[in-house]
């Protein structure tokens, strides 16, 4: 119990003093997970909309793959990305400048994009399917093109889409298995909040570990709150 209280006190102190080491770790966490989220959003939202709106052969299969992906263990994603990018792996062997090296932030971004993509696409699909089908028939009868139709439905389902993005973010900002494996938890380079928590726990620095846990939780909470407040303003106008 003492450790938890001391951890919270330490968290407040670290934030209040703007500890530079901590700031570096928090910023890298946000940069990596933010970039990964951006990638999975620009690919996942269109795919989710497509799956939710159209009927084509193989759609069920794609959906099943997507749902499986939503529960995919991050460590397995990490391991796969690791084996691909390793010096002896199929991509690492190519030695192309575009292929990121292991133990660099770009490798972590790839792993986290793969983890969050099914969540964004799957939740978007569910949100789009939840839009009243009457609405689609109505705008179709008004002569809307397919793209206009999709955009209208997406805008109608915007809260659900937003939730899909938040869920994607929640899944990667708190993820430790994949970033540990492909990032390597290297100080000043690839150390993010989750891997730093594991390290400080291993070192027996429970205060500091708990402090970073509190910061991670607050970060997830604030991000969700900010996005939802922003969304609320868009509605109320």
């Amino acid at each position: 119990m003492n450790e938890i209280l001391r951890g919270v006190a330490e968290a407040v102190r670290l934030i209040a003093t703007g500890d530079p080491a901590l700031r570096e770790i928090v910023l890298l966490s946000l940069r990596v997970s933010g970039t990964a989220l951006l990638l999975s959003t620009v690919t996942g939202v269109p795919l989710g909309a497509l799956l939710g709106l159209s009927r084509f052969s193989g759609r069920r299969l794609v959906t099943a793959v997507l749902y499986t992906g939503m529960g995919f263990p991050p460590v397995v994603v990490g391991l796969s990305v690791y084996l691909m990018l390793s010096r002896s792996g199929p991509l690492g062997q190519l030695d192309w400048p575009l292929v990121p090296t292991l133990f660099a932030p770009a490798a972590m971004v790839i792993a986290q994009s793969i983890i969050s993509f099914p969540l964004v696409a799957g939740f978007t699909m569910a949100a789009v399917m939840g839009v009243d089908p009457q609405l689609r028939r109505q705008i179709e009868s008004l002569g809307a093109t397919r793209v206009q139709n999709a955009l209208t439905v997406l805008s109608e389902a915007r809260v659900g889409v937003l939730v899909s993005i938040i869920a994607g973010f929640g899944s990667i900002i708190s993820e430790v298995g994949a970033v540990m494996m492909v990032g390597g938890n290297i100080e000043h380079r690839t150390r993010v909040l989750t891997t730093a928590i594991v390290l400080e726990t291993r070192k027996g620095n429970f205060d500091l570990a708990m402090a970073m846990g509190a910061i991670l939780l607050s970060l997830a909470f604030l991000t969700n709150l900010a996005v939802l407040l922003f969304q609320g303003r868009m509605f109320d106008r």
Partner: protein
Amino acid sequence: MLTAVANGNNTLGKLVGGCKRIPNSFLLISLALAASLFACSSRADLPLAPSGAAEDPVGSGDAAAQPAEPQKLTLATTTSTENSGLLGYLLPHFEEEYGVRVDVVAVGTGQALQLGRDGNADVLLVHARAREDSFMAEGHGVRREDVMYNDFVILGPAGDPAGIRGQSNAAEALERVAQAEAPFVSRGDDSGTHTKERAIWEAAGVEPGGDWYLSAGQGMGAVLTIADELQAYTLSDSATYLARTLEGIELRILVEGDPILFNPYGVIAVNPTKGAHIQASLADTLVDWLVALPTQERIAQFGVAEFGAPLFTPDSAAWHRVHAIDAD
């Protein structure tokens, strides 16, 4: 969960007014938070030490005579003894002989000592002599024995860009690595190996830092993987390194044999005043067993079949009494 989102969204889509939005925002916040919390709890694999449950300490060490369910002993140890496979090779014999289950918590020496300090482990098998001594001096342990030793080695890529191959002085070798600014992967986890590495840097008069010095904060196995992948230098205990050569590692031993690279392991029985859950007499039995001649002989045999040489050298008082004549 999917249904919840779809329903929530459906309701929201139909809402145009502002006042009824609050409950929905709440729904969404809690939903998203629940998602991230769930992710937290299922994905964080922090090593937590199981404590010795509520069993009463046994009066006599003769646990084998008791038909009751097996008792549990928690051994906190360094990653090297676990990663090299030594404990998996030794402990089943102890478990069978005494009818005890030994739970191994493999962490850095720093955390192993902390686990002992907090009363979360009954026995510690660690390798950082100075820190073991202060642990004993602070009264956290009741007994400390030498068990075995092995050597640290400086590993690097076959190309050896810093040119340290065959150096007899470990500190000079690391100084060259620093001068060449060749990548070096450090454990950076406050472990026994990390403690040793810092001691060598200190002997070299170098404060390592900069782009070439990578502090990984992970166990020996992970650090070997990283160093191998990045073609970097690193410091490892020879046992973990040799065990890894079976799985194909490109790193080579470049420097070995300097007395500073000596790596002794000690076993400590945690002070039973930490709580009634500490298995004092069982812990004592395990310590006796580890330093006893039959176990020491087993340690001397470990790895011989695979590597042609033992990974650890026995070092207990009992061993030395018998082998004193052989020495030199």
